[in-house]
């Protein structure tokens, strides 16, 4: 049975997910978002191996965006890291989310990728809110809600003595 409790704080009320649909849905959402990135990265690995040459090309094409010269500079100077990095990190982000391991770190990586996709694709014909921004917000949401704690391995990892003695890890797990 789904239950939820509210805790009153000096800044309003915080919602706690104690079971049922909310936890299940967060776990399901994490699985689907993880598959999205895993599929994207793994198929790049299958097709191009560690030489995803479109990555630097895409960044070089990001002229006149809100990110200024940063992506173009990255495309021109970091191609050696971007070509293998895009498929590898997309795959790892996907695996991390699906298994619920290092979920917040994976979500931070997903936000980084989706920011570049959102700004770079710049398909704003129907407004700023498009599929790329929704993907970005999904990663933010999963990270903020620590979705790896629901049906994810982070729930167990966080209980280990190592994490208890290294609480910084809670902000990479969760």
């Amino acid at each position, binding site marked *: 049975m789904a239950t939820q409790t509210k805790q009153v704080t000096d800044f309003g009320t915080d919602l706690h997910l104690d079971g049922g649909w909310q936890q299940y849905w967060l776990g399901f959402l994490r699985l689907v978002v993880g598959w999205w990135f895993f599929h994207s990265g793994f198929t790049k690995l299958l097709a191009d191996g560690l030489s995803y040459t479109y990555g630097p090309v895409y960044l070089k094409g990001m002229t006149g965006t809100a990110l200024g010269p940063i992506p173009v500079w990255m495309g021109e100077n970091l191609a050696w890291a971007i070509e293998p990095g895009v498929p590898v990190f997309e795959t790892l982000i996907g695996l991390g989310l699906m298994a619920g391991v290092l979920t917040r770190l994976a979500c931070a990586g997903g936000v980084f990728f989706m920011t570049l996709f959102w700004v770079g694709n710049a398909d704003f014909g129907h407004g700023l*809110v498009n599929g790329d921004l929704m993907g970005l917000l999904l990663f933010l949401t999963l990270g903020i809600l620590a979705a790896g704690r629901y049906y994810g391995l982070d729930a167990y990892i966080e209980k280990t003595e190592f994490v208890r003695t290294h609480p910084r890890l809670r902000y990479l797990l969760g």
Partner: protein
Amino acid sequence: MTLDINDMDLLDRAAMLVGTGLMAVGVVVLGLVETLAGEPYGAAPLTNEAGEVVATPMIDPNIRVGLVVLGLVVLAADGLYKLVRATPETDEAENATAVTQ
């Protein structure tokens, strides 16, 4: 099991409000301004069948996107701050605070 959103100090709350505030201004507030300013209602130039631009957004989309990215940067900075701040001592103190609230 509780969410870490309870573990907030003044800086966290400021970052939360500023970060999400910048994102809300970029997407919603300026989106409303853009809509009320007339065509194009979106954030891209309006073209005719010949592909000629017949109307451009009143607000440069880069400004709106920039505000959202800035908001993300604020949230990321807060995340890093929480990461750096966390120690076994602060962790125990926060748990104790959460229990007594």
